[in-house]
């Protein structure tokens, strides 16, 4: 199924420097992405998932945020040491990204063809008609109907689902090795979400692209991903193959996330929710960060941060309660 490691993130730390203090949005995150696989990065809002993605591309808001530590190895080369010019050659070409809201991802004053061709021409200089042809091909790959006509249209003339396909087309147009999808279906109609996910899977099968799939929805993870990393308050608390994590979640947070996915076939009186809120970044607890909301937490949990325990093959989690079974 999967091949060699194409993206290796090691101990990534990204801090935001605000007037009220330093916010450690990404506080020691490590994961690896293999060719041909989909890795899900799951967590509630503001847990640091999107910041992680921006850190990989080095597109953090200038002045406000900075990656202060870590290595991001793409094909063995550390992206964090690259110059701006080198990064621009890599963005779009080796790593691509899909953003969440199709309504705002496209520039309203240019045709979708213009925006597509611009991406292609940046990385593959060539005569205009070759670029044009590549653009039409990209639209075809994302199953946009009548691509030769649509390519001359403006974003406002397309529906949300179509726009998101265009964004997908832009991402795959330069045949990247890695694609980061940041909540790509969250803003789409529910009826279209499944179609889009299937599309991504098909594209991946052909191209063997590695996909980092960011979402807050464990249900989508189950449908889409091969492996999953669960993120909470800036750190990864569990990771492993999707099947294993789903059937045997080791971390209480993961268990709660999975429990809150509404199941169609089971009748329930109340939907499961997780009590409480994630901690403020300025007020991070000493020990395990999930302790304030965890039913199993004790004093030890609250004072010391749990190390990584191996729960199964390639399945790890950070919880003191796993000490017994380790």
């Amino acid at each position: 199924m999967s091949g060699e490691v194409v993206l290796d993130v090691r101990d990534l730390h990204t801090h935001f420097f605000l007037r009220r203090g330093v916010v450690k949005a990404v506080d020691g995150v490590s994961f690896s992405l293999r060719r041909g696989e989909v890795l899900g990065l799951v967590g509630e809002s503001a847990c640091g998932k999107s910041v992680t993605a921006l850190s990989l591309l080095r597109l953090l808001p200038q002045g406000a945020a900075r990656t202060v530590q870590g290595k991001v190895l793409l094909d063995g080369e550390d992206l964090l040491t690259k110059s701006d010019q080198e990064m621009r050659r890599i963005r779009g070409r080796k790593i691509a990204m899909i953003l969440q809201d199709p309504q705002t991802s496209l520039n309203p004053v240019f045709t979708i063809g213009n925006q597509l061709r611009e991406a292609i021409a940046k990385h593959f200089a060539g005569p205009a008609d070759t670029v044009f042809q590549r653009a039409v091909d990209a639209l075809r790959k994302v199953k946009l109907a009548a691509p030769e006509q649509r390519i001359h249209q403006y974003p406002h003339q397309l529906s949300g689902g179509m726009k998101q396909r265009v964004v997908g087309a832009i991402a795959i147009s330069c045949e990247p090795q890695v694609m980061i999808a940041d909540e790509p279906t969250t803003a789409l109609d529910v009826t279209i979400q499944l179609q889009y996910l299937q599309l991504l899977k098909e594209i991946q099968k052909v191209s063997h692209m590695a996909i980092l799939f960011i979402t807050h929805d464990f249900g989508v993870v189950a449908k889409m991903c091969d492996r999953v990393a669960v993120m909470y308050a800036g750190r990864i608390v569990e990771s492993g193959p999707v099947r294993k994590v789903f059937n045997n979640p080791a971390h209480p947070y993961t268990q709660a996330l999975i429990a809150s996915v509404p199941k169609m076939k089971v009748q329930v009186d109340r939907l499961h929710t997780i009590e409480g809120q994630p901690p403020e970044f300025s007020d991070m607890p000493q020990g395990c960060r999930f302790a304030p909301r965890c039913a199993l937490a004790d004093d030890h949990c609250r004072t010391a941060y749990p190390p990584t325990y191996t729960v199964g093959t390639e399945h790890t989690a950070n919880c003191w309660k796993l000490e017994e079974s380790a």
Partner: protein
Amino acid sequence: MRRYILQRLWQGIILLALVTTIVFFLGRLTGNPVDLMLPEDATEEDRIALIETLGLDAPMYKQFGIFVVNVLQGDLGVSHRYRRPVVEIFFSRLPNTLKIVPAAMILAMIMAIPLGIVSAVRRGSMIDRVSGTIAVLGIATPNFWLGILLIYIFSVQLGWLPSARMGTPLHYVLPTITLGTFLVAGFMRLIRSSMLDILDSEFVKLARIKGLSETTVVWKHCLRNALIPVLSLWGVFMGGLVTGAIVTETVFAWPGIGRLTFEAVIFRDYPLLQAVIIMDAVLILLINLMVDILYAYIDPRIRLAE
């Protein structure tokens, strides 16, 4: 697009009709329109003749009818002071105004666009703060005083530039700067604030994700979007431009239609003023229409509204 333009044109015509009506009624407001329309040395014969021509002894609606018919035929009355048909005077002065107003606007655009963009991109830097200060001053300084100040500095004290009337290319400098200043200030602030909004938008993020250079991102993706509010808020600038033209031409004794308006006021030349206003209205509506077309051209959402 065509529908949009026709709609705007229609609105303009209605506005014109409204203006004409108001101008007419204001003239009859004082209850003594005859005196208003005649110079001071008019004889009794003149009075009777005027009453007849304008039908001032007829009921109001009839008077209005006569007025409208006259206007549509291009007869807007005769000026007291010049003893010539107003339309004639207007068109003889119009070219002079057309020499400085577009120049001021172009100057404003050339200065405001780069300054606005750079201020936004390098927010908080020295250039942002300096241009921000100049903009704030530019808006606060009344047009007429700026002109006089410039005359004082460059004409009286330094003797570099002439202070009044037309003549050499040098004569164009001060009036253009005076007229252009508040435009530069206003445009610059508007462009800066819309740039700041745009720089935060998702499509700019996506442009960077594609690997485009920052120059392309700013000048291709941001600029066009940043100009849109300038065009849609054009009406605000138009008002200031008209005031500016009147005042600037007055200060520099520039023989254009702005100064003509001033003369009409100062000499209580009512027929002249009435007519100038109507003609100004036509001119303004034409300019507004052009701006609307430009706006539709730049923003495909308007151009291709389904």
